[in-house]
């Protein structure tokens, strides 16, 4: 029965997304006969190599090195006229389900610079770090913890986004984004060649049995039935000149079902997620500084078998471009209080882009976790852009 339901769900999703694409193509064709339209296509392919050093538990359960195509994306922007545009990003990653290949597919109607309405699937605009989901947006290789390691907000959503920009002084702009809709996944996401990123929480102690158990008893229904949950959020930000941006964001997601097994019994509960945070971006000539701090709160209905969790994530990044090609960078990320996990990771790397079409990145990550020895991850990446 469950299998039939799953198949039906898969079919209905496929049908809906296929229909969206057909609609997109029909609209594009219709307009191509009537108006001058602008089309912009870009994309990239990323080949990564990974090596995880000195994590005994990980080495017992998985290979500690590998090489693979970790990402390939094609972005198409179609501007049908001054008011209507259609935006799509198809992204392949080895560890995502096929629904997630359509990372974004949306249409925007621009009433004015101060007011636009976007409908479809889009990356959540409540934190600019979400955009680092795409390799060219990320100076480094590993995805920020805001994307792989938290339940603060989902990566993307199917729904509506009301957005705009209001110039309040010569050098001060005010931006707003209001969103509402449904999302499929707010859980940690596997990423990378070995599927290690996003699952660091499994390797919290030196116990292989415990890690194995955590893998088998995942605490989420997300991966079973591709559920959908309602959520809403907002971001308000200010541009000061063209070099400084400060923003605040919030997200509320209702009824993300969770399951837990205790003493052989299985318990289910709805868990609401509420988060709020702020971000800063400072760009001056060849120096770029970014920082983001978010607080999350999980509120279960069943407080007997589920715990209310409070946690925060801090990320910061500094990058400096030398000779217009070489960008050394450093990042610091701290996750605290999430399921009694405290994790810090430092990232150092270099990004070399001698010409637009080719980027090479080298990266070292050092993990500091509570109950196991510190360990390292080494990564290399070649990104081909077009």
């Amino acid at each position, binding site marked *: 029965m469950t299998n039939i339901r799953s198949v039906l769900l898969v079919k209905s999703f496929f049908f809906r997304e296929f229909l969206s694409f057909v609609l997109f193509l029909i609209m594009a064709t219709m307009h191509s006969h009537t108006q001058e339209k602008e089309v912009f296509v870009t994309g990239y392919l990323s080949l990564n190599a990974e090596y995880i050093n000195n994590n005994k538990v990980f080495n017992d359960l998985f290979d500690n090195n590998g090489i693979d195509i970790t990402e390939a994306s094609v972005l198409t922007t179609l501007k049908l006229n001054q008011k209507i545009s259609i935006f799509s990003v198809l992204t392949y990653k080895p560890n995502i389900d096929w629904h997630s290949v359509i990372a974004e597919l949306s249409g925007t109607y621009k009433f004015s610079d101060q007011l636009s309405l976007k409908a479809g699937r889009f990356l959540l605009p409540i934190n600019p770090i979400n955009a680092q989901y*795409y390799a060219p947006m990320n100076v480094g290789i590993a995805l920020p913890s805001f994307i792989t390691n938290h339940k603060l907000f989902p990566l993307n959503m199917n729904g509506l986004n009301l957005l705009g920009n209001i110039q309040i002084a010569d050098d001060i702009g005010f931006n707003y984004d209001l969103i509402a809709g449904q999302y499929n996944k707010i859980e940690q996401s596997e990423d990378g060649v070995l599927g290690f990123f996003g699952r660091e929480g499994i390797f919290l102690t030196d116990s292989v049995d415990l890690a194995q158990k955590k893998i088998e008893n995942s605490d989420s229904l997300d991966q079973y039935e591709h559920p959908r949950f309602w959520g809403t959020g907002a971001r308000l930000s200010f541009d000061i000149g063209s070099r400084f941006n400060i923003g605040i964001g919030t997200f509320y997601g209702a009824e993300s079902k969770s399951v837990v097994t205790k003493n052989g019994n299985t318990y289910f509960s709805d868990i609401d997620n509420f988060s709020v945070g702020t971000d800063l971006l400072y760009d001056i000539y060849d120096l770029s500084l970014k920082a983001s701090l978010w607080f999350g709160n999980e509120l279960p209905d069943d407080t007997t078998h589920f715990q209310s969790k409070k946690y925060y994530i801090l990320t910061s990044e500094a990058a400096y471009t030398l000779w217009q090609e070489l960008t050394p960078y450093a990042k610091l990320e701290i996750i605290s209080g999430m399921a009694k996990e405290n994790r810090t990771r430092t990232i150092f790397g270099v990004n070399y882009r001698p010409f637009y079409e080719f980027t090479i990145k080298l990266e070292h990550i050092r993990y500091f976790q509570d109950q196991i020895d510190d360990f390292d991850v080494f990564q290399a990446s070649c990104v081909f852009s077009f």
Partner: protein
Amino acid sequence: MKKKVLHIVAFLTMYFAACVISYSQDFKVIVNIDSQIESITIGNISDYFLKKKLYWNNDMKIVPVDQIVNSKVRESFTKIIHEKSVAQIRAFWQQSVFSGKAVPPVEKASDQEVIDFVMQHKGAIGYVSSDANTSDVREIKIVKE
């Protein structure tokens, strides 16, 4: 030994002089003939081409028009106006597009195509080689900030 050092110094001086000369301005910035603009700062031109500023002072929409990526004039324009390489500017646009902020300006394959585009669009701004005939458009003076 002294002679060798002198040779190296002379070589380096000539090399840097050549670099400076090769990036001297060999383009003209043009706007529509009806525009009232007389002069413009380098910073403003950069902001207009990167779509950081969207409107002229008279509230008309700015429509920048670029040259294709492998043209000499674009290389020179990018070095002087943006103080970056063409690859860096393309990377900037790739990031803008992926974040859904903006798409790059329209690109044209020759000076004449740029001039034609600027003639047809009231709010347009473009650049052409310094030897191009710009009698149908208005050439504006670039001033330092």
